[in-house]
């Protein structure tokens, strides 16, 4: 990015109208990917000058144990629903989960899910990191995920969405193919980096379950309806002859939210709707970026 300038210079302006059309494989109009965040939050992380990890001094019992629900109960509940309806996960992974709860990571890997890095812990914030510190979390991520799953990570979602001005350049330098941190479009877009290339894949933060339940205060049924509307619109636009071509819908999830017993039933109905519609290319993040590069 252009550090210190008003426009960070992440991308060129490209109007939604008049874009060169392209279709997803099989002529599908919208690529749908599901991004479960498999996370570990520390009970008593070191302090960061710019962000407080918890609302109470450690142990912040509800905050910590709510997130732990994912790793004891709701990961499997969410994953089973996804598998049942044919949705693989592209996992936003706190890579230290490979050490703390390897069974969760192994389950996702056995389901054929893809992993990208979401930092070491979701309680370590990147603001103010030195270049050496930031390189260390990228190298640690690559190594840790490779050791635990045999997969080479291809993407990045910054831990707790915290960045430095050099993050995007660095991940491109390490050969990563996509970032999930930019929310400027409903299609895959090129990101300007110092060297190499990097794609921005839409992560649809506005329909993230955390936004649904804790920013917009939706019920489980309202959130499920939101996903269906998001899908319907993007599928319509992706199919239009005068439209922009293949759109992208991401469903970003946290098991401790979507896997609660009052929400998972309506969510399953939304997945069923999308799977049966026929216009969705249900894919993993890396596949979507590859198809876009091949056809863009």
């Amino acid at each position, binding site marked *: 990015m252009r550090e210190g300038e008003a426009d960070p210079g992440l991308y060129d302006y490209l109007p939604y109208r008049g874009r060169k059309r392209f279709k997803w494989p099989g002529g599908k109009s919208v690529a749908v990917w599901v991004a479960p965040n498999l996370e570990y939050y520390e009970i008593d992380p070191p302090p960061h000058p710019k962000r407080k990890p918890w609302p109470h001094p450690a142990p912040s019992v509800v905050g910590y144990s709510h997130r732990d*629900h994912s790793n004891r109960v709701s990961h499997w509940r969410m994953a089973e629903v996804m598998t049942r309806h044919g949705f693989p996960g592209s996992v936003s992974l706190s890579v230290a989960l490979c050490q703390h709860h390897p069974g969760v990571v192994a389950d996702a890997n056995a389901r054929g899910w893809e992993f990208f890095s979401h930092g070491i812990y979701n309680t370590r914030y990147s603001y103010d990191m030195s270049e050496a510190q930031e390189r260390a979390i990228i190298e640690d991520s690559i190594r840790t995920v490779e050791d635990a799953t045999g997969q080479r990570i291809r993407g990045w979602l910054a831990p707790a969405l915290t960045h430095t001005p050099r993050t995007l350049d660095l991940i491109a330098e390490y050969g990563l193919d996509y970032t999930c941190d930019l929310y400027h479009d409903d299609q895959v877009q090129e990101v300007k980096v110092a060297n190499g290339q990097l794609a921005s894949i839409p992560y649809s933060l506005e329909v993230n379950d955390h936004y649904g339940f804790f920013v917009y205060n939706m019920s489980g049924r309202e959130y499920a309806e939101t996903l269906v509307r998001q899908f319907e619109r993007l599928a319509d636009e992706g199919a239009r002859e005068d439209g922009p071509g293949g759109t992208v819908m991401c469903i970003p999830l946290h098991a401790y939210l979507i896997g609660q*017993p009052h929400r998972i039933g309506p969510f399953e109905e939304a997945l069923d709707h999308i799977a049966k519609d026929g216009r969705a290319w249900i894919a993993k993040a890396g596949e979507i970026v590859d198809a876009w590069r091949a056809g863009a």
Partner: protein
Amino acid sequence: MTLPADYSQYPHRREGYDHDLYVWSNMHERAPVSWPKGSVAVWLTVSLEWFPIQPGGPFKAPGHMVTPYPDYRHYTSRDYGNRVGAWRFLDAFEKAGVKASFATNAAIAERYPELVEAVQAGGHEIIAHSTDMNGTIDATLGEDAERALIGDAMTRLKKASGARPAGWLSIARQQSFHTLDILRDEGLTYCCDWVNDELPYRFKTERFGGLINLPLNHELSDRQIITVQQQSADSWAQSMRDAFDWLAAEAAREGGGRMLPIHLTPYIMGLPYRIGALECLLADLAGRDEAWFATGSDIVRIWEAQQ
């Protein structure tokens, strides 16, 4: 500005948790638990709260005073729950033929003995819930003060109610790293604060002598859904039905009992325009074959016998 080098060090990065309070276990791989009837234990817990008009304690409890002193508006609307709402709950539970747990401030038992007598006469359970709504706990309180607070709550609640509770609910479920030791020393059987599971589990027995966590899901509470998320009472009841349906189906599929904790607040769900939604829900669930309405102690006892 840069961060210190140790910001990038991870001394607790290891298999298992980054603390020593309980061990990891995933629910679907445990030996299944079975209830005396049905497959979903429906655990109603009512919070009986008295808010002193002058807030105190390490942090302000949810629902505490808002305006400058004297905040008549919030003092009285919280106390409405104790005068009116809780009595509506008792009638509703009797009509549905169900038993509940009442997480009770010691000050409630002292100030409103008629209410606590009616709770006990109805066959409901009393759970200890600190002294009053200034009796919050966090790490800034200090171990000695916390030990005194919990001891005071237990002593006063026993003196006023005649019963020594087996369970403890912290205000806002917030603890310090000393709380579990203190609850063990007070002879409590279980606490309800850690919301990481949907069945009871034991804290590390070598440290906490068998103390059990009975998770009281905060996401399913009327406070979370109605007060925080601003949903209607009907939407809350719909969520409870959706949760029950899911858990009953999951229990049938996987063969183990499940638990539906429903946390109620008299000044929230006991209002005239909301109580009907609770009454309808109770009637529906009481008519379901899969439902076993139970108090916290009932659930803990049955679970413990199968471990």
